């Protein structure tokens, strides 16, 4: 294996662990990503193209899923990008024959302006801003617990069984405000109390501790929008 390949592999393994290293690596190989997208589109990609975003996402996915046993990283990444673009194309194919609402006519009036819209865009924007604020506060509070959004995404339960166990523990915490108070005070998830109270395995809760931090924080005061978003899951708790 040539030294370049060794260097690439070491960079990939560094990017796996560190988000900043991953961003730098992706930045460094942007020409490669654009070239792969151009091969698929048969034209140079534009910054606003969804395909470029998907190719960048596929490159990052390749970083996370790569191992030395799979051979050359660039070949692996190229294959990942190609597969993602093909999947997106097949999905978008269902929408072929439909007219975009952003399409403009001779007078540069967009089609969407001609359709009566019952939505209150102002309220939607307000809501989005409020949600953004909540999310920023949540991120800041999570930092006090030593947890990032990426960590929560990595630690989130994937299997239905595990998700049910965690949701059971969260419901129990919502019904016992003293547990949430204790959680905010100690900056630690009371795993033993949750396991005992919700009658679930402590080991399962331990494996998803960072996820529980995020969701328990959402269940505390100040995060009504997000709590409302996941309220269907948290049935049996207080109605919001």
């Amino acid at each position, binding site marked *: 294996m040539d030294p370049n390949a060794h260097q690439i592999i070491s960079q990939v393994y560094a990017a*796996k662990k560190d*988000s900043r290293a*991953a*961003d730098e690596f*992706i*930045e460094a190989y942007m020409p490669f990503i654009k070239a792969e997208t151009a091969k698929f589109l048969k034209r140079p990609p534009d910054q*606003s193209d*969804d395909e470029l*975003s*998907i190719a*960048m*996402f*596929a*490159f*990052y*996915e390749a970083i*996370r*899923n790569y*191992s030395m046993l799979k051979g050359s990283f660039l070949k692996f990444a190229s294959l990942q990008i190609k597969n*993602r673009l093909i*999947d*997106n194309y097949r*999905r978008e194919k269902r929408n072929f024959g439909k007219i975009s609402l952003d399409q403009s006519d001779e007078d540069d009036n967009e089609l969407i302006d001609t359709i009566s819209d019952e939505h209150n865009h102002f309220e939607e924007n307000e809501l*989005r*801003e*409020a*949600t*953004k*604020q*909540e*999310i*920023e506060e*949540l*991120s800041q509070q999570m930092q006090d617990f030593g947890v990032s*959004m*990426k960590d*929560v*995404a990595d630690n*989130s*339960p*994937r299997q239905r069984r595990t*998700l049910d166990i965690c*949701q059971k523990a*969260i419901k129990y915490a919502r019904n016992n405000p003293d547990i949430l108070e204790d959680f905010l005070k100690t900056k630690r998830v009371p795993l033993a109390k949750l396991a005992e109270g919700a009658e679930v395995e402590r080991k399962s809760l331990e494996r998803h501790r960072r*996820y529980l931090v*995020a*969701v328990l924080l*959402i269940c505390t005061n100040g995060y009504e929008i*997000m709590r409302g*978003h*996941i309220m*269907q*899951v*948290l049935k049996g708790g207080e109605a919001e």
Partner: protein
Amino acid sequence: MKYIVMECHDSYSVLMDEESRFVMAANINYEVGQTVTNPIIMNNKEVEARNIKLFITKAAAAAACFILIAGAGYRYYNHNFTSHSTIVLSSQANITMELNRKGEVISLKSNNDEGNDLLKDYNGKGKDKVTVTNEILELELSKGYISDGDTVELFIASKNSDVFDDYKTTFENKMSDLKVKINVHDMAAKAAEPPKPNETVSSENKKDEVKPNPPVPEKEADKKEEPLKPDDKGVKDTPAPAVEKEKEKPNADIHEEPPVPPAPHDELLKPPAEEPPKPDEVKPTAPEPEAPAPPAPEKPADAPEPPAPDPAHKEREIKVKPHERLPEPAHSIQDPNSIDIVLPELN
């Protein structure tokens, strides 16, 4: 399913769904706080690979445990439930005991009615061999299959000679005070050497063991006959009876009957000088009291020792000077049945 965009990066975004799951997805011009549907969610093969590795590790550990338990179980089974030696109690009720490595009885069988009758009401499995032997002998005594003073043959078969020696010592030392004599034999040697009555391991009185003299193999007995040439038959005849007479006594277990010698011709053929038996031809053994006496040959009884057959035949020792005539033959050499011309007698 609706997703709230929680965090945006250049190459990906973090979304939260309505089931409070957090996922990584492609950032297709998303903004934080935006609600999206149908995102391109990341496949986390790294986690899958980790899970597979964990599964393989667990499977390997389980397999190793299984092998360990199976090995231990096999060893336990081999020690306690497989036959390592066999003892045959040879009496009217022929009982065969199969023993495990520890000398405990794992099965009792019999091949005759008396033995089966005895074993019907007796179960010696799991007991020590000496205990079972004692109990069986007591049962045989009570049922009348054996009586006080009888001798019972005990044959031990094992792959290891040390086992035989150990068992024999055990039977010597630990048999109970039954008035029954027990002869212990190695079954491997049984085919070559039938049990000798003087080899006694008595439970009453512990005498020194008298080792039976090994019988002369049949081949060696045959060897005596082989070296003789066909034309020495006449010479063989005379010494043979004396040789065979001695031969028969020590080798009672050799079932081959000595050849009946033809009528010796005493006038012509003197018995050769008394020669000691050659060691490679005759092996004298201790006399068997029960061995039947062979038929007395026609040779006079005063023949002192069985001389070895002389391959180079010496018919007689006649000293004749060169110028002298040969003496007249003592007997007629003419065969009455011969068709030859009758020769006049020499003067």
